[in-house]
C-alpha cells in the first residue's frame, strides 16, 4: 500500500508486557492520527445549511445566491464523505483497527440508530397527538368544546379524507392512498430486502463471494424499487388524489413521515450499493466486515420504521 498522507494511517501504541489484567483484553490502544476531514465536514455542513437558509428566505420568484451556496455545500458533503471514508477504509485494510476500535465503531452505529429512532419518534408522536387529541378536540370532544363551539361548530372531526385536513379544509377535498395497493407491495419489497441482506450476511460469513454479490445486489435493487414506487405514489397523490403537503395535518404527517423514511431508504440504498462495490473490491473478510454489518443494521432499522408507517399511516 502506498504511503498515505499525513491525515492517513494509524499510530498503534504497543502494549506493555507488564501486568496480568491488561493482557486480557487490550492488545493495543489505537489513537488515529490527525485528519483534516472533520474540519472539512464542519465547513461543508455550514455551507449547506447557510445556503439552504438563504435560499428559503429568498424573495418570491428568486433564488438569490442561496441555492448556489447550497449546491456547493452538497457537493462538498459528498466529497467529504468520500474522502473521510476512503481514509478510514485504507486504515482498516492496513490492519490498524483492533478489537477495541471495532467495538467503539459498533457502539457508535448502535447509538446513532437509536438517535434516528428518537427522530422518527418525534414525528410518530406528532401523528398520535394529532389523531388522539388535536383533531377530536377541534371536533368538540372532551377538552375542545369551546374552540369547536366558537370557531368551527360545523367541523365533524375525523381522520383521513373526511376531515384530516382540519376545520378549514385546507388544500381542498382529497383522497387517501389505499393501504392495500402500492404500500402493501412496498411492505413486501422491504421485508424481502431484509431477508436478502441477511442471506448476503450469512454468505459473507461463509465466504461465498458470488452469493454475497447476488443477494446484496438484489437488496440494492429492492431498495431502489421501493424508492421508485414511493415516487409513483407521491405523483399519484399530487395529481390524482389531491393529497399534498398543504392538505391539513393529514398531508403534513403523511408526507413528513413517509418523506423522511423515503430519504432514509434512499440513503440506505446508496450505502448498500457502496458496500456492494466494496465486496467486489474484496474489502471484507469472514471475520472483519463491520462496514457491511453497520449498513445491514441501518437497513433493518428503516424496515422497522416502515412497518410502523404501514400500520399507523396507511392502515389505521
Amino acid at each position, binding site marked *: 500500500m502506498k*504511503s498515505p498522507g*499525513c491525515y492517513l*494511517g*494509524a*499510530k*498503534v501504541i504497543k*502494549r506493555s508486557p507488564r501486568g496480568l*489484567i*491488561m493482557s*486480557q483484553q487490550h492488545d493495543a*490502544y489505537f*489513537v*488515529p*492520527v*490527525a*485528519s*483534516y476531514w*472533520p*474540519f472539512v*465536514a464542519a465547513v461543508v*455542513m*455550514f455551507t449547506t*445549511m*447557510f445556503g439552504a437558509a438563504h435560499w*428559503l*428566505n429568498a424573495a418570491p420568484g428568486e433564488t438569490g445566491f442561496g441555492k448556489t451556496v447550497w449546491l456547493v455545500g452538497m457537493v462538498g458533503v459528498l466529497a467529504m464523505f468520500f474522502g*473521510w471514508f476512503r481514509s478510514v477504509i485504507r486504515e482498516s485494510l*492496513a*490492519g*490498524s483497527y483492533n478489537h477495541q476500535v471495532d467495538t*467503539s465503531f459498533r*457502539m*457508535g452505529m448502535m447509538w*446513532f440508530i437509536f*438517535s*434516528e429512532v428518537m*427522530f422518527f419518534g*418525534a*414525528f410518530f*408522536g*406528532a401523528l398520535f*397527538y*394529532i389523531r388522539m387529541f*388535536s*383533531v377530536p378536540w377541534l371536533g368538540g370532544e*372532551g377538552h375542545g368544546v369551546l*374552540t369547536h363551539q366558537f*370557531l368551527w361548530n360545523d367541523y365533524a372531526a375525523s381522520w383521513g379524507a373526511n376531515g*384530516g*385536513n*382540519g*376545520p*378549514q379544509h*385546507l*388544500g381542498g377535498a382529497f383522497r387517501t392512498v389505499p393501504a392495500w395497493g402500492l404500500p402493501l407491495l412496498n411492505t413486501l419489497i422491504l421485508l424481502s430486502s431484509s431477508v436478502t441482506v441477511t442471506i448476503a450476511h450469512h454468505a459473507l460469513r461463509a465466504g461465498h463471494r458470488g452469493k454475497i454479490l447476488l443477494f446484496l445486489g438484489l437488496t440494492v435493487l429492492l431498495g431502489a424499487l421501493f424508492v421508485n414506487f414511493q415516487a409513483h405514489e407521491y405523483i399519484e397523490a399530487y395529481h390524482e388524489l389531491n393529497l399534498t*403537503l398543504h392538505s*391539513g395535518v393529514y*398531508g*403534513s404527517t403523511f408526507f*413528513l413521515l413517509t418523506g423522511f423514511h423515503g430519504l432514509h431508504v434512499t440513503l440506505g440504498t446508496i450505502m448498500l450499493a457502496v458496500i456492494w462495490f466494496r465486496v467486489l473490491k474484496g474489502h471484507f473478510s469472514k471475520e472483519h466486515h463491520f462496514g457491511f454489518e453497520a449498513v445491514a443494521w441501518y437497513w433493518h432499522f428503516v424496515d422497522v420504521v416502515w412497518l410502523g408507517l404501514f400500520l399507523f399511516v396507511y392502515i389505521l
Partner: protein
Amino acid sequence: MSHAATHDQHDDHHGAPKNFFQRWCMSTNHKDIGTLYLIFALTMFFIGGSFAMVIRAELFKPGLQLVQPYFFNEMTTMHALVMIFGAIMPAFVGLGNWMIPLMVGAPDMALPRMNNLSFWILPFAFTLLLSTLFMPGGGPAGGWTMYPPLSLQSDSLAYVVFAIHLMGISSIMGAINIIATILNMRAPGMDLLKMPVFVWSWLITAFLLIAVMPVLAGAVTMLLTDKYFGTNFFNPGGGGDPVLYQHIFWFFGHPEVYIMILPAFGIISEVIPTFARKPIFGYKAMVFAIASIAFLSFIVWAHHMFAVGLPLGADIFFMYATMLIAVPTGVKVFNWVATMWGGSMTFETPMLFAVAFVILFTIGGFSGLMLALVPADFQYQDTYFVVAHFHYVLVTGALFAIISATYYWLPKWSGRMYSEFWGKVHFWNSVVWVNVLFFPQHFLGLAGMPRRIPDYNVAFANFNMISSIGGFLFGASQLIFLGVLIHGVFFSKKKATDRVWEGAKGLEWTVPSPAPHHTFEVPPVIHDEELAHGNVNA
C-alpha cells in the same frame, strides 16, 4: 499489528504537531479538543453575558431607555440560546473530554476524529445563529423555546432551525463518543461502580442527549415546514395544534434541563470529597439518584405547560411526577452535606464554589417545587419567579459547578497554580452579586412582573434596579475570573504538583501536571486505594 507500517508516518507522539492548523483544526487529541470546547464555552459565556447586560440595562428603570422592544426580545432569545447551547453544554463536554479519559485510564476518546467534528461544528453553528442579528429583519425574538405561531413570523427562523440542527448533530456525536469511551475504553480493573461520579453523571447525561436532541430536531423541522413548505402541524385551521409543539419541545426540553445539571452534580461529587478529605457519602446512592432523575426527566415535561389548558388529569399526573424528582435530588443534597460532616475541610476556591452550589442550587430546587404545584404555577407562570428559579439552578447551579471544576482541574491542565487570593475575590464577588441579581426577582415574580418585557409598571422599579446593579457587578466579577484564568494558565510562577490537592483521589491525579499530550498509552494498573470509590464493594 501494523506497527511496521507506522514508521513512515509523521508521529505526534512526543510533542505537538507541526503547525497551528494541524494542532487545533485537525486534532484527534482529547485534551486539545477539550481545551477548544472550554475556550469556546468561555467566549460564548461572555457573548451571552453581554446580551444579559443589555437586558439588565434596559430594565434598570421603568420605561424604554436604551433599546427597541424588538431588539430587547432578540436579546432575551439569544441570551438563552447562546448560554444553553453555547456556554453551559460545551463547557460540560469540554470538561468531559479532558477528564473522562484521564479518570477511566483511557488514552483518548473512543472516536477521536468524530470528537473533533463535534467541536468544530459549534463555531459554525453559532456563526449561523449570531449572524441573524445583523440581517435585515433581525434575529429570532420569540423566546428560546420558539413557540409557534410567534416564532413563525420571524424571517430568521430558517437560520435558527439549521443552527439548532447543527448543534444537535454536534451534541449527539459528542454524546455517542462519551458513551463509547466510558463503556469501551476503561482501563482493566476500572469497574463501572468504581468510576468517579463525574464519569457516571456524564454516561447518563450522554444517554439523555442521544434520546432527546433528535426530538428537538424533529420539533424545529416541523416549524420549518410549517413556515416554508405549507404544512399545518401547529395550525388549528388545518387540524394541528400549537400546543403540540410545546409537547414535543418540552419532551426534549425537560431532559435538556438535566443535561445541564447532571454533570454539575458529578463535578460537585468530585470536589467536595477532595476538600472534605472523606470519600463521598453513599456512592451507589449518588449514582442511582442520577439515574432516577434521568428516568423521571422523561415523564415531567408538561409541567412547563400547566397554564396552556391541559386536561386536569394531565396537570395532576405531571405535578406529582415532578414533585417525585425532589426525592433523588434530596438524596444528593443530603449526601453532599453528609460527605462534609466530620470532614477535615479546607476552603480553596473550588470548594467555595461547590459549597455555594449546594446551598444556592437547593434554593433553586425549592422554588422549582413551588412551581411544580399546579394551582400555584397558574400564578407564577411566565413571571420573574420562573426567571429567578431557573437562574438559581443554571447560574448558581450549572455555572458555579463549571467554575468550581475549572479551578479544581486547571492546575492539572496548565501545570501552574492559579492565584488563590484572586480566586477567592472572584468567588465572594460572584456569590454576593449573583444573589443581589436574582433573589429580588423572586419578589418581582410573586408581585406579578411578567418575563420577556422591556418595560414594566413603576411598582416594580426598586427591585429591578437592585437586580440590575447585581447583574452589572456579577458580570464585572467574571472579568476577574478571566484574569485569574489567563494568569493561571500563562503567568503563574507557582508550579502544581501531580496530586495538586492534598485530598484528591483518582487516576487523573496520578499523571504529571500539566498532563502530557498523551496519557495512559499503556493501560494503568488500577490500585483500588488510589480511587475515590475503589473499595465501594468492600
